[in-house]
């Protein structure tokens, strides 16, 4: 079974060497180093993240998203039509995003995540996954224009985000993952999620298009998610363990990214136990493209623990069959 992390990876660690990016950002904030110096430091951090994933034996890698401000404002800063404002708690975590405030309809001006993808592709031979936060989540964590609605903002975000997906596909992303954690908070699939999936599917080129949900389960909307034109679904089966019974009842031709490794707790899973659970889910669902992944961003863990989780992830995938 193939394996890879869901999205982000710790950008710093506990040793002084692993804190280079933190120091660089602080010095950049103080005007002591240039934008290029900061970009160089980000690239070093990204290379380390890639190397640690490769060393663990993961099949698909990410750049660790080490240049992202946060999962929301990073995209909003790159689109036209947003101001970035105060802090807002990110789901049920002790982490925060900067809340974007819409000035008007968002616009695509230039690719946001493509430069980091291109840099990552130059640093690894493994397939690289690109990540884009989806319109439902971006809208949910943004402030609409006065008199506007979150729903309208979600619709308005589809076209510019589809341009980003198109640019990522053109840049050679093997996998393009649309992160929609807010779909774990809804009882009915928002109509904008369907329109977004259609737009992204048209833009994805030859990349595998993945919809990722996390911070909870999606049992109530699982059939709707499976009907969307994504190639694969990534499902949080740790915090969203309530999805498991519903998942065992479906048969699907889609790829399933089984997020069975807990990215929010340090306790290490037993690879053989995870492998058995993954095999059972593959047998139950008939998915032709199983993939083992983490339940969330590994930035929720200290780097040393994240490294251990990489090893557990790769070993569990190996035991489940196939893989590295």
């Amino acid at each position, binding site marked *: 079974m193939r394996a890879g992390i869901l999205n982000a990876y*710790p*950008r*710093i*660690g*506990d040793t002084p060497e692993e804190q280079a990016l*933190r120091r660089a*950002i*602080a010095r950049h*904030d103080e005007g002591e180093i240039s934008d290029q110096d900061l970009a160089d430091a980000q690239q070093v951090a990204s290379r380390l993240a890639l190397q640690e994933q490769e060393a663990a034996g993961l099949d698909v890698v990410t750049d660790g998203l080490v240049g992202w*401000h*946060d999962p929301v404002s990073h995209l909003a800063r790159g689109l036209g039509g947003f101001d970035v404002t*105060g*802090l*807002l*708690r990110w*789901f*049920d*975590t*002790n*982490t*925060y*995003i*900067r809340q974007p405030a819409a000035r008007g309809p968002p616009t695509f001006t230039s690719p946001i995540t493509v430069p980091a993808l291109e840099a990552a592709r130059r640093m690894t031979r493994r397939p690289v996954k690109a990540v884009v936060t989806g319109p439902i989540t971006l809208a949910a964590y943004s402030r609409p224009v006065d008199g506007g609605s979150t729903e309208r903002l979600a619709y308005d975000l589809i076209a510019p985000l589809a341009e980003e997906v198109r640019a990522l596909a053109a840049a050679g992303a093997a996998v393009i993952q649309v992160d929609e954690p807010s779909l774990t908070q809804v009882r009915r699939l928002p109509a904008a999620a369907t329109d977004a999936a259609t737009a992204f599917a048209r833009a994805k080129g030859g990349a595998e298009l993945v919809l990722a949900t996390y911070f909870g389960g999606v049992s109530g909307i699982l059939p709707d998610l499976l009907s969307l034109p994504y190639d694969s679904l990534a499902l949080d089966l740790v915090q969203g363990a309530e999805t498991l019974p519903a998942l065992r009842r479906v048969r699907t031709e889609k790829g399933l990214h089984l997020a069975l490794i807990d990215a929010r*707790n*340090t*306790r290490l899973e037993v690879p053989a136990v995870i492998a058995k659970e993954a095999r059972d889910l593959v047998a139950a669902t008939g998915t032709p493209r199983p993939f083992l992944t983490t339940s969330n961003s590994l*930035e*929720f*863990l*200290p*780097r*040393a*623990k994240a490294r251990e989780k990489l090893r557990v992830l790769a070993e569990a995938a190996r035991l489940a069959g196939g893989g590295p």
Partner: protein
Amino acid sequence: MSLLTTHVGSYPKPPELQRARTRFSRKEISAAALRALEEKATREWILFQESIDLDILVDGEMYRGDMATYFAENLDGAQVSGLVRSYGNRYYKKPLVTGELRRRGPITVDWWRFAQALTTRPVKGMLTGPYTMMDWSFDEHYGSRRDLAMAFARVIREEVLDLERAGAKYIQVDEPALSVRADEMPLVHDALGFVTKGVKAKTITHTCFGNYEALYADLARLPVDQVDLEMSNSGLDLLDLFRRSPFPKEVAFGVIDVHTHVLETKDLVKERIRRALEVLPPERLLIDPDCGLKTRTVEEAQAKMAVMVAATKEIRAELAAKG
């Protein structure tokens, strides 16, 4: 007196103390040398708060690194993890629970006594609440969020009772994590209620940076006397809820955004207080910053607190003039 002024908890550590903490972590200075600087900084913050005429003081938490890890460092069954990201370029270390939680002895009482002895004004006892300690910890022992929260509740209650016995008139049990999981409010009530049951001191809880729309009714029922809320960072959004459904408890109302270098003008703070007074009577309204000020510089924090108190005094005068 109405419109009392207070502070949520932390102040920035002066640079010499920051350097000393780094040197202590490298074993370059002794615990006694670090303690001397922590006491000096605490003394300076108490003096500063008196100098601006703040009504209810805090010790400023000069001896704490992080509000959760400080307690983990002082409990059996808990350790401190490596660094994890909070936001932007800010990182913190999380508690890591590896065994049954037990208090070795009083954790904050000695520091509370030290600070209170420096002033005749009341100094708040400051603790982190059981739900937040649970939510912000890695759990390698209990395996259940409820079991872990109630385990923290047992040790925090011991600390509350010790603070009360030492003479604390105000005891704040912070629950910033309660603001994001409406489905777990029954657990918040059970754990916080266990901590505050029968306590005679005024009990307070602080929360911040969440979506309160779904939690509003639960906030009003929290088992504490006073709820301390971040208001300014979120553009005073909560006022609409207060207007629709009057809040029955005392409210400490955040009028200072703690996450910006920009110093609020006195007029802006006065405007925020006036808007608070539209929905809360002055005798149930306290004025404070949105949250702790430890992320600002000493100068920024002092300027923000001075503006806050000056603005409150002018509003008090306006209220007095109206009779």
